[in-house]
């Protein structure tokens, strides 16, 4: 079936070769219109006094809480995280040295872990905190070396997490060898070493603010129906309340902005505009263009969002931190973008995680009897994928706009309640139409 011409058939890089078909223009326009319509509706007709209870909201789930807090469960999850991590490292370092076509490790890393964190955190809360293998490793190092943890300076905010995420995102989105199993092995090992050292020095608190993947999982989990109320109880709640209850910690905005900017770049890099731009470049020039693109996309989000905040600030009381007040409302837009861009990647490339896992070390094993199986590309039709993508972006927009509205009417004086919302609303409409345009213009 894959007959060749003259040369031998060499399989090149394994991940990310397939793009989604562009959505039809009519769907894009309807979606954009719905987004704009809903925004005006929310502005004009939705509630006039804050309705969300934020961190106070939710119905407690005592049975589930007992289960989740049980020491045995916690230990089991930690052990599971360590075992999976060890297995991953073995396969990444000792499995086939290729570009992800035989070695399952890159698929496990980019699809099951990175993309998988989103639905896992949306459904179950900040799960990575419970599975993160670096925590017990740091704990063991602390115990062995008898180190007492130092206090983590507050002014660091979430910057270490931002740095870690940027490093990962550069790897995933810019580096052209990112699918290679040894590259993935090297990155994960390096990342682990850095964070185990930091976790030894600063204690477990390091991971809450310094580990990019934990912060990412936590950020996504703000929109989860499962969460902790202010009194510590595990509750079932409206995702809007979860978002509203996001602690207003300094330095959260850069995380949100980096996540959004990187997804924008991800979409941008799949357009023909981009592939024409990088066509013909190689090596360092290619990487520089990609880096510029990634930083540019993040910069564009920084500029637009910063501008919106600056326009909103005069309406607020002095001393109120506009950035901190609205950071949570951008999270749903990030989630919508991520679902739209990674859905098919997760569905199709994700299958390779099992198919290749059938023979992870390339020794001719057949662990699951799947040696003849191939990726099933008919799981979802392209039409369904297109509709889900658009719905994710529009839904993310609706949740974002509602979140921002509830917060705004809580902190804006009455007579500026409408004007004060325009800048943020406009910027959100901008992000959403850009997201829809990226889906249509791919």
């Amino acid at each position, binding site marked *: *079936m*894959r*007959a*060749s*011409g*003259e*040369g*031998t*058939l*060499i*399989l*090149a*890089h*394994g991940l990310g*070769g*397939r*793009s*989604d*078909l*562009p*959505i*039809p*223009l*009519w*769907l894009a*326009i*309807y979606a954009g*219109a*719905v987004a*704009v*319509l809903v925004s*005006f*509706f929310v502005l*004009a*007709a939705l509630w006039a006094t804050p309705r969300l209870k934020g961190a106070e909201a939710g119905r407690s789930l005592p049975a589930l809480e007992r289960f989740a807090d049980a020491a045995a469960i916690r230990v089991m999850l930690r052990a599971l995280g360590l075992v999976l991590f060890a297995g991953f490292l073995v396969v990444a370092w000792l499995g086939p040295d290729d570009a992800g*076509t035989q070695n399952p490790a890159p698929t496990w890393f980019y699809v099951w872990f990175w993309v998988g964190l989103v639905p896992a955190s949306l459904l179950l809360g900040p799960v990575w905190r419970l599975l993160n293998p670096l925590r017990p490793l740091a704990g063991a190092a602390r115990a062995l070396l008898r180190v007492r943890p130092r206090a983590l300076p507050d002014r660091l905010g979430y910057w270490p997490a931002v740095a870690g995420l940027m490093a990962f995102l550069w790897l995933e989105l810019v580096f*052209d060898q990112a699918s290679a199993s040894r590259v993935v092995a090297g990155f994960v090992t390096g990342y682990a070493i850095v964070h185990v050292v930091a976790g030894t020095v600063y204690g477990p608190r390091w991971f809450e603010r310094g580990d990019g993947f934990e912060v990412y999982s936590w950020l996504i989990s703000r929109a989860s129906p499962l969460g902790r109320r202010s009194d510590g109880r595990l509750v079932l709640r409206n995702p809007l309340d979860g978002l509203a209850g996001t602690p207003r910690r300094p330095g959260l905005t850069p995380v949100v902005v980096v996540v959004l900017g990187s997804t924008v770049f991800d979409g941008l890099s799949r357009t*023909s505009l981009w*592939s*024409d731009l*990088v*066509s*013909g*470049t*190689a090596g360092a020039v*290619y990487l520089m263009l990609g880096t510029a693109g990634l930083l540019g996309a993040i910069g564009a989000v920084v500029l637009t969002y910063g501008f919106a905040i600056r326009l909103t600030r005069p309406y607020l009381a002095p001393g109120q931190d506009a950035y901190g007040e609205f950071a949570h409302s951008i999270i749903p837009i990030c989630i919508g973008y991520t679902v739209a861009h990674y859905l*098919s990647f997760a569905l199709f490339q994700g299958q390779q995680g099992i198919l290749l896992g059938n023979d992870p070390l390339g020794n001719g094993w057949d662990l699951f009897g799947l040696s003849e199986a191939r990726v099933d*590309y008919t799981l979802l*039709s*392209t*039409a369904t994928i*297109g*509709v889900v993508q658009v719905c994710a972006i529009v839904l993310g927009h609706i949740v974002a706009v509602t979140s921002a509205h509830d917060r705004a009417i809580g902190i804006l004086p009455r007579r500026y309640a409408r004007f004060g919302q325009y800048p943020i609303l406009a910027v959100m409409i901008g992000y959403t139409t850009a997201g829809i345009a990226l889906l249509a213009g*791919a």
Partner: protein
Amino acid sequence: MRKVLLPLLVMAALAAACGSQSQPSEDDGVPATTPSASTPPAASSTTAEPEGTVIAATVKGGEVTDAPDTAKVKLGEPVTIKVTADVADEVHVHGYDLAEAVKPGEPLTIDFVADIPGQFDVELESAHFKLFDFQVVE
């Protein structure tokens, strides 16, 4: 409520007007309105010739000539990609992960069945040099 009705009506009218201009395709949302560049006569997307759809590209002096911007192929059709280049390189069909070396002056043929729906780039691998992309539609 009047404050709400007016913007709602305006938006609804705009949406209806825009929507009626671009006709929805007959299939269930299958994209058919992308204004892609015209495909050369040889590479029509629905003829069921024995060798399937042929998409050709020529590379001369660092430029791509005679190639469609975006070729459209039906799912399950056999496809033949023909590349003639004046440099030695590797032609890579993304997604299907087919890669073959091309020699200067010798036309390279890659035959495969388009069994994966989606959009795929075809490049000269060493320079990320995009030849064209093709869409496999259902």
